């Protein structure tokens, strides 16, 4: 094969006028290739907030993908948002599998969010290998609508395996992780950073959501939402200025 001479100036392929157009075209091709791997015949899953949906791939989460919810410290509210998404994914009949190795998950709170007890399967893995295996199995099962798990460290290989498992099963995987995970490569479709905010009223809870990664969308957008304490409905309070995001936020 004859390699081009280093001194030969770069010429764009026929029909492409500028590098900008080339980049756009390639981006479109990548998006199409990625989409073909996902079971996109299903409707998108609402996050529970229209304002947030606008920032997500196909205006919502997609079945057969993973979503990361990053939050620092206790009582930050990330898991509530993940469960609201799980509620959307499950609908009236779907099953949610919750992996709880710490034994702290409190089902009455999840039931208050609108899930039903017959929709929930709670799994208590004894150790980390069991947790990783159980997550893989649950993501791979087409009978499950969503899987929720809380974990800190996750190596890239396992992450990739889970992504493929979710794709195979058509299951929405919801991973609640600390903010330190934001520096690691991700195989998730969406990565969101949740920060609690002081509430403006006693009826709702304010949370800031920053989109660190959203396949096919521009990352860096931030919004502030309020979750009603009684109805657990979520509404947009404000769109915030775009924030700078760490350069290693994406890996897939």
């Amino acid at each position, binding site marked *: 094969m004859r390699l081009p001479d280093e001194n030969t100036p770069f010429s764009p392929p026929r029909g492409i006028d500028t590098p900008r157009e080339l980049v756009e075209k390639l981006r479109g091709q990548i998006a199409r290739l990625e989409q073909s791997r996902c079971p996109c015949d299903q409707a998108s899953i609402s996050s529970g907030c229209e304002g947030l949906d606008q920032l997500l791939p196909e205006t919502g989460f997609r079945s057969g993908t993973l979503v990361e919810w990053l939050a620092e410290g*206790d009582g930050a509210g990330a898991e509530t948002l993940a469960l609201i998404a799980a509620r959307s994914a499950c609908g009236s009949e779907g099953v949610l599998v919750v992996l709880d190795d710490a034994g702290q998950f409190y089902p009455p709170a999840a039931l208050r969010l609108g899930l039903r*007890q017959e929709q929930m399967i709670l799994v208590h893995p004894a150790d980390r290998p069991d947790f990783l295996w159980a997550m893989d199995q649950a993501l791979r*099962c087409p009978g499950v609508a969503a899987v929720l798990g809380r974990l800190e460290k996750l190596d890239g290989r396992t992450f990739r395996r889970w992504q493929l498992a979710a794709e195979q099963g058509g299951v929405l995987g919801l991973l609640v992780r600390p903010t330190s995970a934001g520096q690691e490569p991700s195989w998730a479709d969406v990565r969101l950073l949740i920060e609690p905010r002081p509430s403006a009223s006693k009826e709702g809870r304010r949370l800031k959501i920053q989109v660190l990664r959203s396949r096919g969308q521009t990352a860096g957008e931030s919004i502030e939402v309020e979750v009603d304490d009684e109805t657990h409905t979520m509404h947009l309070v404000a769109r915030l200025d775009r924030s700078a995001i760490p350069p290693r936020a994406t890996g897939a």
Partner: protein
Amino acid sequence: MVFFEIHRGSRRVVACSDRAKCLGVAAGMPLGEATALAEAGMVHLEPYDATADRRMLEKIAEGCRQFSPVVGLEDAPAPSSLLLDISGLGHLFGGEAALAERVVRGFHRRGLRVRIGVADTIGAAWAMAHFGQQQQEGGGSLFPYRPPTGLELPSDDKADTEKDSRPPFDDLPIEALRLPEATVDLLHQLGVFQVGQLALLPRNELNARFGPELLKRWDQALGRLAEPILAQPLPADFGVEQSIEYPTSRRETIEWILRQLIGQLSEMLLGGGRGVTRLSCRLACQAAGAVEFSLGMFQPTASSQHLFQLVQMRLERLALPAPVAAVSLRAALTAPLQQGQQELFLDRRETQRLRWLAALVDRLGSRLGHRAVVRPRLVSDAQPELAWHADPILENHPIKQLRRRQFSSTAPGELPPRPLRLVRRPVGLAAISIQPDGPPLHFEFCGRQHRIAATWGPERIETGWWRGRLVGRDYYRIETDAGRRFWLFRRLHDGRWFLHGMFE
């Protein structure tokens, strides 16, 4: 819904739903008339499958063993009644009426309506169940109950005794005697409509005019002729075993033997139309006792591949103390395999979804243990840590529970606000509050200082003295100035503060 069959060349209705009945459809009606009565497209027509019907009845009969050890199907070409021998069992359930009510509730839980008759003979009980006066109705289940025919009455009610001494089914229609249609028609032509009218006819002529069936059924109903219940056979014991001439520790060999045995067991189960719900495995080790384990299944299965996967998963985590000399497998619990008939009202997709879920739960339970795969169930208890119960899925026949109607659901709004994470043991806090009984101002948790900006509460939770250890707590939902939310309580008897949960 209307079930029809082809009878003497024409299609006629065998059974129909309540909705169809409201439209005027009735059993025995020609199908054309039934479809004319019901508006087009309003009823679903389904050919009647007598075999599937019988199979389902046999399955229900098996479930009725919890009420009586002797359960059988009625002696008829197309049986539709179950016969339970409850002689001497009433006191175990608080009386025969209580037992009957329990049967009604049991059927109702399965979404089935039932009519029950209790009497000294099969014939009388059948008559009561089919034509007896309805005495009680609950949850769509009809329950006509009459005391046994030989019930002794107090001596001071002599007049009443004489009045009631005639069998209670004398007033019942002649059809109550389980007679062929032709005999009933003939009796009707002769003006005999009630059972009691038979006594007015010369007995020796009945046989000649109506055939032996009439006298036989009448005598059976009155107890003059014995009629046994043909009990359904108990499920067979399914077990396989293989000795190993040269004991081995090689996993591959043991797995190969297990695969062969599971194949044999699967064939046995399929032959009996049953699936295993609990499988016991025993590996006899040379001079070191035996290693035993059992596996529970989410739903009855006879799939050798699925069973082998579960056994293999368990075997991987098993330490064998010595070479294995014999392997045995036994289906400790079996149940009839799920049939298509059962899923009549579930679409194919839903059925497939249940199968996938069953396989997942089996795998999770096999590796993590039965108690690690649970379904939450709310319990009426004020103490938060006791307000729900983890029901191991593999021990509760949950395939039924996946259907919404099996559950009592609580509306989300009826539940009090609770944190998504509850710590196993409340964590003592160094908290400062201004008012003695008021919420704290700030506290320290996990080395971090939290200043409280908003509180909700108190919600007082106290338990009764009969619970042993008294629990008295004032719970507060609090939000820190950073927007984090926690669930704290003040212990009433000493005023100490604890963190019990996080609103994650």
